[in-house]
């Protein structure tokens, strides 16, 4: 008999740039907050899973060492931008199966500055400039413009929406609103994407303690699904976004979403709010379609309807999204889950969505790893 899994406590460290703070220190802070909130101490949990990409050997072990809490199995998980989601999935499975009664899941990152240097690409591909991350986003955005009626103004308005939301989030790195004109006039990075349409890699940490659900008021992890690219969606180029070199659906995000809706026994119409991967403004619009929030080809119409606005029918990225928070790969998925936990408990002061009961969190990245997590209260 599989058990229902609840969140016992959360910890979040603000995202930003912190020259003086090591990644281990950031992870330690987030884990310590979550453990205290959950009332869990040394010897009280049976496994730990750490999502991180750039932190080196045994990073999660170093965090727990600094707290005097090693000895249990500690697994470091790399799944690109979905690393935190992949770690949470393992934690959920450990509780659900009955193997563990308490698990610590955390994620942390100190991203290198500038465009992400990824070992995902072969040296010859890098030498020839076939690895420009923002350009791949731009190509996918161009395809959306061609096929889904997306305009430059739509891209700009997504940025305006998320940055406006980010003003109300003290954990976000960028808390300044922009006008459509300012977004369009910001430096062109890769046409059609300007600087303010792209998220910034940065630093941060998040932690979550899981336990079996046994109280009516629990925030329950109703689904934690993970998918990667399908055979033939050749690793290397299009996989973070899919659909530029091979178009057959479904995308990894859609596969993960369908798994999650089925596991949770709900459909997209049952969601109250969504935190999704807005690596760039095109990616947010594409996610509306891939998460089945709207029919294929209708992401622009869905945005125009006002649904994803803060006061809309289905608010998207009320945290400000990655565009406001920045993206520390290992921490970003878990920070979405922390935000959703606060929202479902009515604790998201200043950006609270009223009557929020069911929320979805989504990340997707290299390897076309796509994670979809559904929380319910």
């Amino acid at each position: 008999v599989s058990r229902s899994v609840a969140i016992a406590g959360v910890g979040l460290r603000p995202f930003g740039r912190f020259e003086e703070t090591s990644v281990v220190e950031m992870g330690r802070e987030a884990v310590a907050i979550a453990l205290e909130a959950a009332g869990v101490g040394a010897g009280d949990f049976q496994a730990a899973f750490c999502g991180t990409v750039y932190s080196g050997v045994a990073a999660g072990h170093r965090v727990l060492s600094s707290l005097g809490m090693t000895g249990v199995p500690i697994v470091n998980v790399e799944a690109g931008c979905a690393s935190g989601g992949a770690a949470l999935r393992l934690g959920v499975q450990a509780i659900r199966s009955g193997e563990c009664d308490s698990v610590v899941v955390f994620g942390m990152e100190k991203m290198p500055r500038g465009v992400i240097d990824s070992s995902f690409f072969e040296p010859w591909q890098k030498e020839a400039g076939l690895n420009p991350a923002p350009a791949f986003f731009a190509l996918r955005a161009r395809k959306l413009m061609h096929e889904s009626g997306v305009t430059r103004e739509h891209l700009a308005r997504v940025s305006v929406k998320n940055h406006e939301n980010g003003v109300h989030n003290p954990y976000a790195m960028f808390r300044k609103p922009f006008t459509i004109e300012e977004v369009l006039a910001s430096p062109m990075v890769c046409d059609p994407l300007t600087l303010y349409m792209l998220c910034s890699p940065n630093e941060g940490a998040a932690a979550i303690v899981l336990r079996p659900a046994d109280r009516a008021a629990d925030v329950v992890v109703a689904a934690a699904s993970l998918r990667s690219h399908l055979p033939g969606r050749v690793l290397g180029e299009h996989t973070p976004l899919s659909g530029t070199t091979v178009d057959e659906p479904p995308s990894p995000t859609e596969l993960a979403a369908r798994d999650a809706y089925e596991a949770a026994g709900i459909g997209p119409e049952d969601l109250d709010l969504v935190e999704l991967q807005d690596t760039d403004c095109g990616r947010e619009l594409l996610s509306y379609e891939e998460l089945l929030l709207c029919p294929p080809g209708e992401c622009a119409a869905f945005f125009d309807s006002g649904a994803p606005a803060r006061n809309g029918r289905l608010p998207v990225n009320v945290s400000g999204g990655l565009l406001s928070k920045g993206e520390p790969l290992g921490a970003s998925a878990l920070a979405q889950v922390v935000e959703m936990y606060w929202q479902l408990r009515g604790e998201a002061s200043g950006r609270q969505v009223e009557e929020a009961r069911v929320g979805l969190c989504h990340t997707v990245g290299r390897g076309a790893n796509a994670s979809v997590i559904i929380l319910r209260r």
Partner: protein
Amino acid sequence: VARIPLKDGVLSAVDAAADARLLAGRCTACARLHFPPTPVCPYCSTKGCATVRLGTDGTLYVYTAVTKAPPGYRGKVPYGFGVVELPDGIRIVTRLTETSTDRLRVGMSVRLVLEDIFQNEAGDTVVGWAFAPAESS
């Protein structure tokens, strides 16, 4: 100065006079093309793909321009970047010779060209490929 390919097995030649082509893998079982060629078909896992020469003329599927050098890049900026659809039945991620997106559009005709990307430590010219607009518009 020697001319060497960016990667072995991707280009049939590194001299423009030699009718250079991109090389792809064609699966002996499912017949699908993939690029760059690999021994195992990435679509159906069949071993033993054949190497085939791709056509030089295609259409532009999506495009952008890169203005800032990505990590490890040894060529010049800006450079065009996009996906080209070839009538052989494959889309290729590629450099584009055109760096101004105002002069590119989805569906325009493009043609394969060789491109000298950088000089390596031995002084050799490392040759890659790009697609260039094939019509004046």
